[in-house]
């Protein structure tokens, strides 16, 4: 699985705290859907929908508490890193052009 396709913590994907209310959760989901509409960013939309699906109701949240695994391998920790596009400034990009 690539970095961009790994299932992340649903609250991280939706950018809300775990203690959020259901209304706030839904609002966050709708905000994210507007940010990543399915026709323009299908991968991100899929990720957002999956995240919301996992936490949208108390039953699903309960299932998540009980069924999601404990600690996997330490390497799995890297899955928790959100996909990053780091703003590095222009220098690294220009270095490639300069052939360095």
């Amino acid at each position, binding site marked *: 699985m690539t*970095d961009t396709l790994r299932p992340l913590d649903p609250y991280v994907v939706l950018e809300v705290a775990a203690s959020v209310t259901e209304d706030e959760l839904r609002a966050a989901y709708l905000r994210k859907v507007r940010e990543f509409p399915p026709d323009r960013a299908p991968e991100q939309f899929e990720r957002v929908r999956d995240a919301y699906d996992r936490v949208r109701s108390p039953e699903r949240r309960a299932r998540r508490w009980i069924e999601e695994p404990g600690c996997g391998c*330490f390497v799995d920790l890297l899955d928790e890193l959100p996909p990053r*596009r780091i*703003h590095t400034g222009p220098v690294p*990009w220009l270095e490639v052009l*300069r*052939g360095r």
Partner: protein
Amino acid sequence: MPRRRRNRKRAATIRGDRRGTRSSALAPPDASGEATSTIAGPPQQGAHELEAQVEDLLARGISTRALAIAKGLHRSAPSEASRTLLIRSYLARAEALAAKGLDREAIALLELLEQNHAEARDPVRSLRLRFAVKGREVDDAVAPLADPDLAPATREEIEDAIRKHLCDPSALASAASLPENHPLRRAAGAITDALARVTTRSVTDVEVALPEVSRRSPLAPWKLLVRALAAFYRCEDEECERSLAAIPTDSAPARLVPELRAMTAAVAPAAPTRLYNRVLGRPDKLRSALGRLDAAFAAEDPFEVPHNIEAAVRQVRSEAPELLERLLQWIEIYAIVHMFDPEWIEHMIGRAPKRDAGYLRRLAKSIEGAPGLPHAFAAPVWISFLKAAVAEGQLASEGLEAAAIYRHTASLLEGYAADEIEELFREAKDLDPTQRSQPGGRRSARGRRSRGAKASTSSTSEHRARDPLWLHARACEWDSSPDGFRAWIESARSRGDDKQMERAAEAWTETHPNDPHPLLIRMQSAESRGALRKALGFLEQAAQRNPLDSSVLHARRRLQIKTAQRHLAGNKPKLLAGDIAALEQTIAELGSKESMDSHLALSALRCAHAALAQDPAGFRLHQDALSQEVGDARAAELLLRAVARLDLRRGKEGAEPGHRRTRSSKKSAQGTDASLLDGAARVCSLCRALELDVEFMETEVRSLCRALRGTIAETLESGALCALAECALQGGEQQLAYLASHAGLARRDAYGARFLLLRGRSLEGFDDERALCCVDAVIALAQRDRNARLLDDAVDVRRDLSDIWSEGPQPSAHPEAVFDAELEHQRPPQNRRGAHPHGSGCPCRRCELQRGGRGHLDLEDEDPVEDLDLSVSFLASIEGAPVAKLQGLPPRLMRLLLEAAMKYGATPRHIPWMSVVAERNPELHAKIRAEVAVCLSSLAPT
């Protein structure tokens, strides 16, 4: 030093060939092309061959050797062609130097070339312009553009060089040779700003519109690059790709196109570039550090673990500090589950991790998944999790989620007695860092104070949380789904707590007044207590709610049979006649819903009624009818014993003994093993449905075993064969169950896993290890086939076979292999464990001791000798053994051995040498020996 000499020296230095062509390369080309040094190529080769060789080397980008050969060729046979080739070789060499970043050296080489070969002036100028634009001498290169009367060809040449080779627009933006308001300089400045903006924060296209850069500008490709970068950072990969596709392939920014495409690709490249790693933050070093930590924990290597913990923590701190807290949490959880000393680990990582709800949930799940720990150890951690999650506001204290956690916790505690649960909670305190007492220090004192303050309020609820039934009751208050009530009732049933069953069913009825099922459960409960009148009352209530529910009708039929049995036992023929009539009506109502031979039970009751009413003719008539219906007289007897047991016993003792026995033996003689097997299977199916016990006679068992060993069973339905095996197990006839399971296994049909479970149950007490193997295989098959009922049954059997300290179910990786292996074993095991024959050659310790030997130590054959030597030899026998293999030891002893393993074992999961324990911790050693002695003395003789 004059500039020319300096440049010559520099060029000589750069052109040096490590492989011995230094002299030829060093020699500057003179006007005639003569040189004194030898050429690198073979002298006897023809000019054309050498020319072709040079062309080939140039095409392959090997400029050093191409230049050496071209120079030699031009010296030995100067011509216009050789001169052209030489100039091309020099230019190629200069380009190669520039490509390595040695721009000044390249320019020096070009100066030398220009001095010696006037024909090279134009290409040299072009190349110098290119180098100047690419490097820091943009100022000089673009200076002619300030002249408004510049020849169009020259302007075009400069702009083309800018388009193709400008690597840093900021150099052009600051070119002092152009006026500040020059369009090119202004465009370069705008691009520099835009580039800085898009690479430092997320921007919109409007923010980087760059109206200063026209489509015809030599900087137009840069505008496209800026747009691509802006889209890339906004994660609009399609937009990014559109901009990348528009960048001309020969322009300078085109060099970033493959990099950006790799970054937006779904699959990471095999060899990511530096820029790729930097922008996407691919933590390769961190990944390998974490991988090494995984390996160290997997090997449980006490030397590698600390070293790798330090390395991983260091790497996370530098590369992904946002992961640090999670890493520390995982390290502590790993330490707990792998039985490393958590305090030692905490000391090593520098501080305790944040023990929040997420941490506790992971800890609980990790304990559940740890092969060496009972799952029930996770129960107190789940309770701690719930408290933490409520405190953090992640879930409501009395909601569906809390109910689910309570039910899960209760399920972990199922099968344990109250005192065992107390013991578990005591032991599990060491696993839960939030519960663990912390020795010494300010923090510990503060912890004690805070704990003391809360103790009075929380102790009662904490204590209650150890009771699975209390947990179920609370869960049903918050989540009133029927499944929750069902789980509560099942839990109460498994604990034999009728009051709780009643309470659960009452609560269920309160919340779901129209559901007949809780009333049926209450009916069953009353029925099991013998309160048939009350049971019928519940049945009527259930029937009022849903009279057509088949479960109500089935329950009524069963209850009517039970009532009839009672009247039969009470010698009340009139009441029995009424029961029979009512049963006839119920069976008629069931009609097409009837799925079993209820009429057989009816016939048996009629037969019993005739016997009770002292009606020999009627008895004969009904018995014959029953025999014909069942198909075998002995099977009919089996049914009569099950349905009308008391009456027949009385008959045997008094009223109609001779008559009945004569007829029965006559019929028995007439029946065959095949008809008995067929009839018995039908009777067993019926009795299973009616919850009646089947009692087999020894002669019947012999006949049935004989029939099952042959091929007669092949015609039997698998369901009926299953019922026969179940009834045999219920009646304690394990050999009969074993053979029935074998006949079932041989069919390899959909009942295969069920027969394998029956095989496992039939082995219980004979070969427990094999029994466990069968049950684990069934668990694997049930999980694979998603057969929840079979899985529940198998887990129940597994729980009965194992005990508190044993590992949880270990689903077999190859259940089919177990299936095949069991199919090979047709002959049932003969010797039950504990009924050891102790023959003359018996190798067990008891027999060896009786023969005068010292005897080996086997826990199963252990003698209850109150001899300390025995405890010493027991301890010697387990030294070095894996902790997980020591199943069945008393909890207190197991706890001491775990402590010794953690502190002094070769790994924390292996029992240490007792001499080491005695030397390092005499107190612990004495405790272990004393506990072993106590355990041995409490063992009953076997």
